[in-house]
C-alpha cells in the first residue's frame, strides 16, 4: 500500500530500507509523504519497524538505502543536532541534574540565544503546558504527567517545525493518558507543527491522528485517516490490528460487482464485500466488526444469508453488552450491542441466528 506522492510534502521517505545486521531488513522499501501541519501516527506491534523509522528521521539511525527529505532537502548526511527536530521520548529523558527551567533553557543555550530571550521563551513554553510554577524543581520532584508536559515543552521551546514523539504516554495511567492525548493534539494543531507520533496503542492512534500509518513486518500496511482505517481495512492484518474483529475463513463461491458469496469451512454460506479477492475459488478471511453483527432477523435483508450461533457467554460492560458466540466452529465470535432499554439480553445456551449487511463483511486475503 505505497503512499502516493503528495505535492506539498514536508517530510518524505523515498524507498528507505534499514538493516542492522546485513541479513534482515527491518524496514522494507518505505515510501511516505507527510504534508506540513499533519499529525501522523506510526502504529504497529513491536518489531514492526515504526520506531526505526522515527529514529532514522531523528538522525539516530542511518538509512541503509533510500533517502529521507525534509522540506525537499535530503537529510541523510545531516547530524541529529542540526536537523532542528523536536523530540519527546518514552521515558521523557529530562536531564535529572538540571532544574525544569534549565532543561528547557538547554536547547536555547546551545543555539546561543541571549539570556533575556531565553528566559522569556522558557516561561512561555512552561505556561503553555501549565507548568509555569515548576521552573525551579528537579525532574525527580515531579509526577509522571508533569514530567510529560515538561518533556513536551522542552521539545517545543525552540520552535521546531517538526516534532517526533516516541510512545510518550506509555508510562502514564489510563486517565492521565487520555487527558494528555487531547492536550497534545490540541497543542500540535494550535501551533501548526508537523507531528510524527509512534505508538502501539491503536486507540491512541485513532483518537489523536490526522492519518495513521499501520506498520507490520517492516512495511506500511495501510495509511489512511482513522475512520477509513477502521471502516475499510485493506487487509486482514489491519482489520485485526485496528479495533476488534471477528474472522471466519472460507472460499469465494461467486463474485458479482461489490458483492460476493463465501463458503465457510463449515459449509455455510455468507455474504461479503470483496476487498482483495478477485477470483472464484480463492481462499479468504472475512472480517466483521462485532458491533455490525445483527441477531434481530427483522433488521436484516429478507434474502440475506444467516448463520446459526450458540450463546456461550454474556458480559455486562455498562455502556455495551458483549456476547460471545459459537459460530461456524469459532468459539470466539463476539458481538457488541448498545445498552438501550429495548435491547435483548442473550442468555448462555440460547440458539440464535446472526447476519449482517454484505458491505460490513469484508472478504480479505487469507
Amino acid at each position, binding site marked *: 500500500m505505497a503512499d502516493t506522492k503528495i505535492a506539498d510534502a514536508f517530510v518524505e521517505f523515498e524507498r528507505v530500507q534499514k538493516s542492522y545486521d546485513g541479513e534482515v531488513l527491518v524496514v522494507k522499501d518505505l515510501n511516505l509523504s507527510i504534508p506540513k501541519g499533519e499529525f501522523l501516527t506510526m502504529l504497529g506491534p513491536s518489531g514492526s519497524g515504526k520506531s526505526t523509522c522515527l529514529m532514522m528521521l*531523528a*538522525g*539516530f539511525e542511518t538509512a541503509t538505502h533510500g533517502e529521507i527529505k525534509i522540506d525537499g532537502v535530503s537529510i541523510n548526511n545531516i*547530524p*541529529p*543536532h*542540526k*536537523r*532542528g*527536530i*523536536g*523530540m519527546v*521520548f*518514552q*521515558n521523557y*529523558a529530562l*536531564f*535529572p*541534574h538540571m532544574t525544569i527551567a534549565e532543561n528547557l533553557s*538547554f*536547547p536555547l543555550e*546551545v*543555539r546561543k540565544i541571549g539570556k533575556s530571550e531565553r528566559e522569556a521563551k522558557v516561561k512561555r513554553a512552561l505556561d503553555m503546558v501549565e507548568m509555569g510554577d515548576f521552573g525551579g524543581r528537579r525532574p525527580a520532584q515531579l509526577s509522571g504527567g508533569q514530567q510529560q508536559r515538561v518533556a513536551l515543552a*522542552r*521539545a517545543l521551546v*525552540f520552535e521546531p517545525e517538526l516534532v*517526533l514523539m516516541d510512545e510518550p504516554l506509555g508510562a502514564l495511567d489510563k486517565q492521565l493518558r487520555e487527558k494528555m492525548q487531547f492536550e497534545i493534539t490540541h497543542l500540535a494543531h494550535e501551533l501548526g507543527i508537523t507531528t510524527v507520533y509512534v505508538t502501539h496503542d491503536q486507540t491512541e492512534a485513532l483518537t489523536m491522528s490526522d492519518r495513521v500509518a499501520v506498520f507490520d513486518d517492516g512495511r506500511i500496511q495501510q495509511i489512511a485517516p482513522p475512520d477509513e482505517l477502521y471502516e475499510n481495512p485493506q487487509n486482514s492484518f489491519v482489520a485485526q490490528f485496528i479495533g476488534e474483529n471477528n474472522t471466519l475463513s472460507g472460499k469465494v463461491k461467486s463474485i458479482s460487482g461489490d458483492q460476493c458469496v463465501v463458503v465457510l469451512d463449515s459449509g455455510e454460506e455468507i455474504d461479503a464485500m470483496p476487498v482483495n479477492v478477485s477470483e472464484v475459488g480463492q481462499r479468504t478471511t472475512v472480517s466483521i466488526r462485532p458491533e455490525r453483527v445483527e441477531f434481530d432477523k427483522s433488521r436484516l435483508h429478507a434474502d440475506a444469508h444467516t448463520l446459526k450461533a450458540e450463546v456461550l457467554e454474556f458480559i455486562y460492560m455498562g455502556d455495551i453488552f458483549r456476547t460471545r458466540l459459537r459460530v461456524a466452529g469459532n468459539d470466539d465470535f463476539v458481538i457488541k450491542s448498545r445498552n438501550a432499554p429495548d435491547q435483548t439480553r442473550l442468555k448462555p445456551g440460547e440458539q440464535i441466528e446472526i447476519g449482517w449487511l454484505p458491505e460490513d463483511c469484508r472478504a480479505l486475503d487469507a
Partner: protein
Amino acid sequence: MSETTHTGPVLAADGTPLKKSLARALRVEKMRALLMIAPLLLFVMFSFIWPIGEMLFRSVDNREVGEVLPKTVAVLKDWDGTSGELPDETVYQAFTADMLVAIDAKQHTKLGRRLNFEKTGISSLFRKSGRKIKKLDLETDGPFKEALIKIDKKWGDVETWKAIQTHSVNYTNGYYLNAIDMQRTPEGVAVQSESKRIMMTLFKRTLWMSLVITGMCVLLGYPVAWILANLPARSANLLMILVLLPFWTSLLVRTSAWKVMLQQQGVINEVLVWLGLVATDDRLVIINNATGTVIAMTHILLPFMILPMYSVMQTIQPTYLRAAKSLGATNWTAFWRVYFPQSIPGIGAGSILVFILSIGYYITPEIVGGAKGVFISNRIAYHISISGNWGLAAALGAILLAAVLVLYWAYDKIVGIDNVKLG
C-alpha cells in the same frame, strides 16, 4: 486549638498508651533484626573497631617505663634535670632496686629498646649494664651512684637520666611529635634536627602522589568505563574480564612486570631507542622514582576506579544523549553538559576508593619507588617490622586516618557525600 481537650498520650484500644504498645509490637522485630546483624557487628567490632582503638591507644601509651622502673620514676620526679647536676643516691638506689626486679623478669632489655628510640645508645647501656647490675646486692653494695657509674660511665651522664625522666609519663605525646618531625625533650616540645626530618616530606609526598594517581585513574578509567557501559553485553563482558585481569594476578607479579617494562634496558626504553626517539645513552628514567610509583599504582588501582564509574554509567540511559542531540547539542556539548554531570557520582566513588587505597599502599612504592617514590606507609611498615617502634607506627597511622577523615569531610562539603554511588 480549642477542640484539643484530651492532652494526655494517645491510647490504644485496650487503654495502654499507643507509643508503648507500638514499641512492644516492634520489639520482636527489632530483636530479630539485631540478631541478624549480630555476627557482622561482632566481626566488625573485633576486626576493625577494636584494632583501630588499639592503634589509637598505642600511639599514646607509654606505661612501660613506669611499670618497669616504678620506684625510679617516683623519686626522679623531684630531680631538676635542667640544673645540670646528676640525681642523688636515692635515685640510683631506687633504679638499682627496679633493675634487679626487671632483670629477673627480663624486662630491662625491652625497656632499653624502648628508650633507645629517644636516646641512641640506651639499648646497649641497659643490656650491658644488666649483666653486671644482676650481681649487685641491694643490702651491701651501696652506694649505688658510684657502683653504677663504675659499671658504665653513661650512668654518670645527665642526659641519660633526662631521657628516662622525660619519657616516664604514662601517656605521651612523644610519638605524635616524632610523627610530625618534632620531639619531646626535657625542655619541652622541640623541632626535630634538620638531618632527621623526613615525616612531613613523606606525608606531603603521599598525599600529592595519591592525588596524581587518582587523577591518572580518572583520566584513563573514564573512557574505558564509558565504552564498557555502552558496548553490547557480550563484548562488554570480554572487556570487563580484561579490566579485572589485574585482580587475578599477584600484586608482586604485576609490580615486577612493570620493572621489566620500565627499566632502562626495559621494553619501553628499548622500543623508544629502536624508534630513534631517545638516544641509547639517554634512556628515560621511569622506574625507581616517583614516575615509576605513579605508573605502577595507577595500573593496579585502575579497576577500583573503573568499576564504580561503570556501574554508575550503566544507569545513565542513552536517551539522555539522544535527547540532548535532538535539542541541538553537538556530541561534545551533549557529553559535557548532560552525560558527564550524571557520571560524577561514579567518579567521586572511584576517586575516594583509589585515593584511600593509594595512601595506604606500601608494597608497590617499595618495589618501584626507589628513593623518591616511597610513601609514608613505607615508614609505617619500617617501624612495624624492622625498628619495632609500634608507638610511632601507630601515631603515623592515626595521622593518616585523620587525614582521610578530613578529606572525606572536605569531599562532603564540596561535592556532597550523597553524590557518591557504587551503582
